[in-house]
C-alpha cells in the first residue's frame, strides 16, 4: 500500500466575475506519496498555480469557487476546514515557496522576524522566545545564510538569497508537504541550480513530500519522482518520471513540450514551439482541448472528450490510445 500524504480528487476550480466564468482547473486528480516529489508541468495559464493555491485555501476569496472535488490531507478534507483550522495547517503541515522572491518578502520586516513569525504562529504551548530564536538561527544556517544577518531587511539580499529566506520560512516548521510554485523561475540559471539542489537536499533530509510546479522539464527531470502534465486546466498525462521521460507513448502535447526544448546535438536555426495558443478558458469545449493545436487530431478529438488510457502507472488522456489502439506499439 502506498503511503499517501495528500490526495486530490476530481478538483474543479472556477473564477467567476460579473462578465465571465473562467474554468481554471477542470476535474483533476492526483496524489502525493510520503517523501516523494510530484512535478506539475504546463505552460503559463494552465492552472498550475490555481491548483496549488487551493491546497492551502489561498485562492482569492471573492471570485474563486471550488466547484467540486476533495483535497484530502490524511482523512480531513481541506476544503471543508474552517479558517482557524486551515491556519493551523498553513506553514505548519503544508508550506509553500512562491515564484518571485523579490516580492514574496515583506520589505519592512527583518528576515529574522519573518522566519520567527512562521514558528511563532505554530509554537507549542510553553515554547520560549529563546528557543524559537535558536530555531531561526538553525533554519538560516540550513539554507546557507549566516544567522548574523537575521536583523537585515529583504532589500539587503540578492534574489537568490531572498529565495533562500523564502525557503527558510517554508521549512521552519518542518512541514510534511512543501509546495514549490516555480521556485526558480525568477532566478538566473546559475542560482537556479543552486536553489534546486538545496531544495532537494533539504527535502531528502527532512523526508518532506513535495509538489514542484514548473514549466521547465529540466527541473522536473532533476527533481521529480512523479510527473503530471497539465494543459488548459486538465491533467493530460501523468506517470512516474520514467514513464514521462523514457516511455514511447505520449500525449501529443507532451511530445510538443519535449520538441520545444532546444537540442544541442542537432543543428537547428530556430526553436521549435507548439503552434497556436491555449484555448479560451471561459469556453467549455466538448472534445479534447488540445485538438486545435494537435498535429495528430482526428474527427473524434473535436467531438468527444477523451478518456484516460492507463498502462501501469502511466495515464494519458488522448484518443490515440483508446482501447483497441494501445496494442499498436
Amino acid at each position, binding site marked *: 500500500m502506498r503511503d499517501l500524504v495528500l490526495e486530490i480528487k476530481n478538483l474543479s476550480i472556477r473564477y467567476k466575475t460579473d462578465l465571465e466564468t473562467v474554468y481554471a482547473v477542470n476535474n483533476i486528480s492526483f496524489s502525493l506519496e510520503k517523501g516523494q516529489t510530484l512535478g506539475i508541468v504546463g505552460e503559463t495559464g494552465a492552472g498550475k498555480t490555481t491548483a496549488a493555491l487551493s491546497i492551502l485555501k489561498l485562492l482569492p476569496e471573492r471570485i474563486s469557487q471550488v466547484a467540486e472535488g476533495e483535497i484530502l490531507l490524511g482523512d480531513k478534507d481541506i476544503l471543508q476546514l474552517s479558517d482557524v483550522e486551515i491556519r493551523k495547517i498553513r506553514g505548519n503541515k503544508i508550506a509553500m515557496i512562491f515564484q518571485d522572491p523579490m516580492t514574496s518578502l*515583506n520589505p519592512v520586516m527583518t528576515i529574522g522576524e519573518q522566519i520567527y513569525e512562521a514558528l511563532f504562529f505554530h509554537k507549542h504551548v510553553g515554547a520560549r522566545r529563546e528557543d524559537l530564536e535558536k530555531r531561526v538561527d538553525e533554519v538560516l544556517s540550513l539554507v546557507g545564510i549566516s544567522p548574523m544577518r537575521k536583523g537585515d531587511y529583504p532589500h539587503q539580499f540578492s534574489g537568490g538569497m531572498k529565495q533562500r529566506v523564502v525557503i527558510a520560512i517554508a521549512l521552519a516548521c518542518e512541514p510534511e508537504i512543501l509546495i514549490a510554485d516555480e521556485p526558480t523561475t525568477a532566478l538566473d540559471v546559475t542560482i537556479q541550480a543552486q536553489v534546486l539542489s538545496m531544495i532537494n537536499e533539504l527535502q531528502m533530509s527532512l523526508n518532506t513530500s513535495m509538489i514542484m510546479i514548473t514549466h521547465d522539464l529540466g527541473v522536473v527531470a532533476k527533481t521529480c519522482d512523479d510527473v503530471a502534465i497539465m494543459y488548459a486546466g486538465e491533467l493530460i498525462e501523468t506517470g512516474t518520471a520514467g514513464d514521462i521521460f523514457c516511455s514511447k507513448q505520449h500525449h501529443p502535447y507532451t511530445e510538443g513540450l519535449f520538441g520545444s526544448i532546444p537540442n544541442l546535438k542537432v543543428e537547428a536555426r530556430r526553436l521549435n514551439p507548439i503552434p497556436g495558443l491555449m484555448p479560451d478558458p471561459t469556453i467549455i469545449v466538448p472534445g479534447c482541448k488540445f485538438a486545435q493545436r494537435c498535429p495528430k487530431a482526428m474527427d473524434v478529438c473535436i467531438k468527444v472528450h477523451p478518456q484516460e488510457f492507463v498502462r501501469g502507472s502511466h495515464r494519458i488522456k488522448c484518443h490515440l490510445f483508446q482501447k483497441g489502439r494501445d496494442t499498436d506499439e
Partner: protein
Amino acid sequence: MWRYLFRRCLLIIPITLGVSFIVFSIMAITPGDPATMILGIGGTQEDIDRINQELGYDRPFLVRYGDYLYKAVVKHDLGTSYQFKTTVWSNIKQRLPVSVKVTTFSLLIASMVGVPIGVLSAVKQYSLFDTFPTVLALFFAAIPTFWLGMMLMLVLSLKIPIFPATGIASWKGYVLPSLSLGLPFAAQQLRFARSSMLETIRQDYIRTAKAKGAPENIIIWKHALKNALMPIITIIGINFGLILGGAVATETLFSIPGLGSMVVTGIKMKDIPMVMGGIIVLSIICSLIMLIVDLLYALIDPRIKAKYSRGRRAAI
C-alpha cells in the same frame, strides 16, 4: 542620517527666503496702499502721502524688502502691525499656540476616525463596511466646513448645551472647531487609507504571510498597514499645513484668534508686516512638518532609511 537632517534643516533657509520674497512682491504689486486702508474713504491725499511716508511705503520695492529682511534677520524684528500698532511677533505669539492646538486636535480626530475605518473598508471591500463609510466620507468631503461648523454649533451647543458656541476659554471650546475641521479631513484620510490598503493587501508578501498561517488581524495591522502607511502619513502632513493657515472660515465662525484669520485680515487691510510675519512662520512650520514626515518614512521603511544614510536624497 545626521548629515541628512542637518542638510534638510539648512534647506529651510532658502525656502523661507523664497516665500518671503514672493509674498512681499504680491503685496507690492496688488493695488492699494496701507495709508488708504488705515484712513478709510475720507482721507485726503496729503494725509495718505504723509502716513505712507511714515510707514516707509514711499521707498522703492527692493529697498523696502531689503529693509524688512535686515530687520527680521539681524534685529529679529518682524515689524509693527499697521492696523493694531502692536508688534507682529506679539500677535503671532498669541495666535500660533491656538492654531497649533486646533490643528493638532482636528488631525487627531481625522486620523483616529479616518485611518481605521479606511483600513476596515479596504479589508471588507464591497461589503457594508465598505459602502457605508464610503458614502459617509463622500458626504463629509462635499459639505463646506463652515456649514458643518454651524450645524455642530446648532446641535451641540444651542439645542443640547454641552460645548460653548464660540471662544476658547477652556478645552471645551476646542471641541466643536476641531470636529468641524477634522471630519472632512477624516473623510479624505479614509479614502487614502482605503486605496493604499487595497493596493497593499494584494501584494505577494501578504500571501506569504497567509501561507505562514498568520491570523487575519496580524496580517492587516502588522504586515499590511505598515506598508500602507506612507501615503497616509504624507496626506496627514499636507493637511497639517492646510489647516494651520487655512482654517479661516472655522476660526471666524467660532471666534478663534488663529493664524489664518490674522493673515487674511492682514491681506485685506494691506497690513504688510502682519502678512509677512504670519506666512513666514507658517512656511517654517510647514517645512518642519514635511521634515518630520520624511523622518517618519525612514522610521517605517528601512529602504528609505538606507537612502538617507547614503545621503543620496536631498530634495524635499
